[in-house]
């Protein structure tokens, strides 16, 4: 059984906007959400810039009650706000707590890359190490367990289908969308909230800083610090937030006359096996190309169908290799590469949330007929120079934009790639 899957709702909490409409506007403007973080200076991080969603506490106070907030760290707040927004954007009301109805046909695959290290760093470790285990209270486990966000969400929305949290480093959010879509395709669910979330914490970012994979050269110019595809790219900027798609069977969406943003045509996940140049931290280029080609095949697309690429593109030395991999997988000469852009240029690398947030960006570009700018690469990397015409430095209006492809790659040499097509009434 293979059924068509569509996107009927979006939710996003990002460093440059906390609403879907605000995020669409920020993307068009090329607005950076990256800021100087005094705590990172105090702790002598090399990188002192990060992407942190703003004014989330005010939203959280409206969305959650006091008991819930006592057990919701930043990862939980971002993930649940984005998921609730996607649910309501799809036309569903939040259920009352007293309503016994369970949505057996609706579930969630919402992943996280690192998870609740703020809870671990601020409470679990110091309390445990000082012999105060009893003082930890009851709220630690649900905030540090990998499935904590979906565990909370299932209660907020009375979800009765599969509720789980995947984890595949920086491909987590994209993988989650493919997992949920697959479940709907197979007829095992009608609706799935899918994407990723990642909290804001120096404990999450410290290990990356120690690896020297974060940018250290733009601490005094935060908005210019994330520089994918540029010659001056010196590492990524850590971000945080959440992005969630409300996926639905076409059958269910049409039966309730839902607004349809786009169709999930298909996708693929794989691993490069740490061979052929791949490692814990670098992708096997053959694995990347295979993943993209498999996504095209699964989607019933040929390379010429692709109108735009939302790359992984983090602002490390891997960017030139990635651009080359896209060109080879799409079998095109440099001058024929479709427009290619990096959402991370504005929000940094949101790790486990990256795929979710950037898939929301991809859907918004389809919906609005534009490709957002990839900022801070006025000095295009020499190895990417042959593709320079494909990089939008300002918003590029593309009313003909119909099919967009999005990929995410992660530590462990894992890859995920998904293709979306703008919905039009002739697709019935």
């Amino acid at each position, binding site marked *: 059984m293979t059924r068509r899957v569509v996107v009927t709702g979006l939710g996003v909490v990002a460093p440059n906007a906390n609403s879907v409409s605000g995020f669409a506007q920020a993307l068009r403007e090329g607005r950076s959400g990256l800021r100087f973080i005094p705590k990172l200076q105090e702790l002598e991080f090399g990188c002192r810039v990060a992407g942190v969603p703003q004014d989330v506490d005010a939203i959280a106070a409206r969305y959650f*009650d*006091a*008991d819930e907030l*006592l057990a919701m760290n930043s990862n939980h707040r971002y993930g649940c706000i984005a998921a609730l927004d996607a649910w309501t954007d799809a036309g569903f009301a939040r259920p009352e*707590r007293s309503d016994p109805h369970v949505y057996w046909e609706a579930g969630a695959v919402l992943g996280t890359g690192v998870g609740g290290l703020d809870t671990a760093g601020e409470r679990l470790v110091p309390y445990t190490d000082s012999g105060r285990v*009893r*003082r930890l*209270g*009851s*709220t630690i486990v649900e905030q540090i367990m990998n499935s904590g966000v979906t565990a909370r969400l299932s209660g907020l929305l009375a979800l009765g289908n599969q509720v789980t949290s995947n984890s595949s480093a920086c491909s987590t959010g994209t993988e989650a969308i493919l997992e949920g879509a697959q479940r709907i395709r197979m007829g095992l669910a009608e609706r799935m909230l899918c994407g990723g979330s990642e909290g804001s914490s120096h404990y999450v970012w410290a290990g990356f800083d120690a690896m020297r994979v974060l940018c250290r050269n733009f601490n005094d110019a935060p908005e210019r610090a994330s520089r994918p595809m540029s010659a001056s790219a010196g590492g990524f900027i850590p971000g945080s937030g959440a992005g969630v798609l409300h996926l639905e069977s076409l059958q269910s969406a049409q039966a309730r006359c839902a607004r349809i943003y786009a169709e999930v045509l298909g996708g693929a996940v794989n691993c490069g096996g740490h061979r052929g140049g791949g490692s814990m931290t670098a992708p096997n280029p053959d694995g990347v190309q295979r993943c993209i080609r498999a996504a095209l095949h699964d989607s019933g697309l040929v390379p010429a169908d692709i109108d735009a690429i939302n790359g992984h593109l983090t602002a490390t030395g891997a960017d030139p290799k990635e651009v080359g991999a896209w060109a080879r997988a799409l079998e095109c000469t440099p001058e024929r590469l479709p427009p290619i852009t990096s959402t991370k240029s504005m929000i940094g690398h949101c790790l486990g949330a990256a795929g979710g947030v950037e898939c929301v960006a991809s859907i918004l570009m389809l919906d609005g007929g534009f490709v957002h700018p990839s900022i801070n690469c006025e000095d295009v990397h020499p190895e990417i120079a042959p593709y320079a015409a494909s990089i939008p430095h300002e918003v590029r209006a593309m009313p003909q934009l119909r099919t967009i492809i999005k990929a995410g790659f992660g530590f462990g040499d894992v890859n995920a790639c998904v293709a979306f097509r703008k919905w039009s009434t002739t697709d019935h």
Partner: protein
Amino acid sequence: MTHQEVFQKVVGVLKPYVKNEAALSNVSEATNILDDLKVNSARLVDVVLEFEDLFEIQIADADADKVDTVGDAVSLIEAKLS
């Protein structure tokens, strides 16, 4: 501290955990913390920690396990304070 003051402070500690707001507005010493106020049973350990901090007392697990109603909590705290 008067009996009424202890009662009010106990209700104040319970307030953020209460899932049944209506029951809170009619709260009395006979009100059952789990059944009436619909406090999640897992959160009772947090409530006990807050009692300890607020009243500067120690509450053994065995004593905490005997608390069912708001009045039980008030009596336990008063016994520790005296």
